[in-house]
């Protein structure tokens, strides 16, 4: 599973978690549990699960990054179904979410996602993992370069992410990132550019919808 770090910020990358089956239950306890999770005390009118579902729906319907990713995945044969491909669950630690390639599901940590902006970021991040899984043979656990590639945005953060989830030396991590950085940093799919903000994401979505006209006229 590829985990999303908690609140973004230059120094906070070490929250990234990558779980093998025997470790997954420690962070995503409900992944392997039988029956329904128990609700604790009722802390507000809406449960964490209800809030998670509501925020997820809003993200899927309105966020330009996510709308492009959903379109691109549909085009690649991986149409996303909210009920099938998303799961709001309680998680241990500070993890915000993860992509479980073995079940083709995005896990959202309903106890750790605090607001709509956070939900937007987590869903975007995990959909990128899902998109990469859909279009390529990504060896999440057996090739550290593939892991490096899926997390590449900023070089130092990618190194920290790998060190947080793999028992390897810093030199090996650095080498893995450096080997793949040139290629992975320049792979902007499906955006076609680095979407610095929603304007870029909207332009990218516009270009994606225009692709038939584009490729048949160059």
């Amino acid at each position: 599973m590829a985990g999303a770090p908690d609140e973004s910020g230059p120094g906070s990358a070490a929250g990234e978690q990558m779980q093998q089956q025997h470790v997954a239950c420690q962070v995503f306890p409900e992944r392997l549990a039988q029956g329904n999770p128990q609700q604790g005390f009722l802390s507000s009118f809406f449960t964490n699960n209800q809030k998670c579902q509501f925020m997820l729906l809003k993200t899927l319907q309105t966020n330009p990054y996510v709308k492009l990713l959903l379109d691109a995945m549909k085009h690649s044969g991986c149409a996303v179904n909210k009920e099938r491909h998303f799961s709001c669950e309680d998680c241990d630690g500070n993890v915000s979410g993860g992509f479980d390639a073995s079940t083709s599901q995005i896990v959202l940590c309903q106890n750790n996602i605090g607001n709509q902006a956070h939900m937007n970021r987590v869903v975007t991040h995990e959909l990128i993992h899902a998109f990469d899984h859909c279009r390529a043979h990504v060896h999440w656990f057996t090739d550290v370069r593939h892991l490096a590639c899926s997390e590449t945005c900023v070089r130092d953060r990618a190194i920290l992410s790998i060190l947080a989830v793999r028992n390897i030396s810093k030199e090996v991590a650095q080498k893995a990132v450096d080997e793949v950085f040139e290629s992975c940093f320049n792979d902007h799919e499906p955006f076609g550019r680095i979407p610095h903000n929603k304007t870029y994401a909207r332009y990218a979505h516009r270009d994606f919808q225009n692709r038939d006209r584009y490729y048949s006229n160059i």
Partner: protein
Amino acid sequence: MADGGGWRPPRPCETYSAEWKLCRSARHFLHHYYVHGERPACEQWRRDLANCREWEERRSAEAQQSLCESERARVQAARKHTLVWALRQSPPADWHLPLPQEEKDQ
């Protein structure tokens, strides 16, 4: 592609205008400089916009050719890095399958 019949610019002219404007914005300058360490090059968008309008107004063959060359160069530039992983020929077979516990319930 210069087959004349049925050709139109790869993007609407408004798109070239929007891209040129975005490229020249202060925010884009900052993003681009931060990431690449150099100022962005926006002149090509301006040329593409001019060629697009030229074709719209006068159906100029030169404008059509310039526009095609420009866009093909963009596609080439985007593809020059080989991917780290192998692309799939078809999507993962288990993407749409029901979840394991759903199978047990049924």
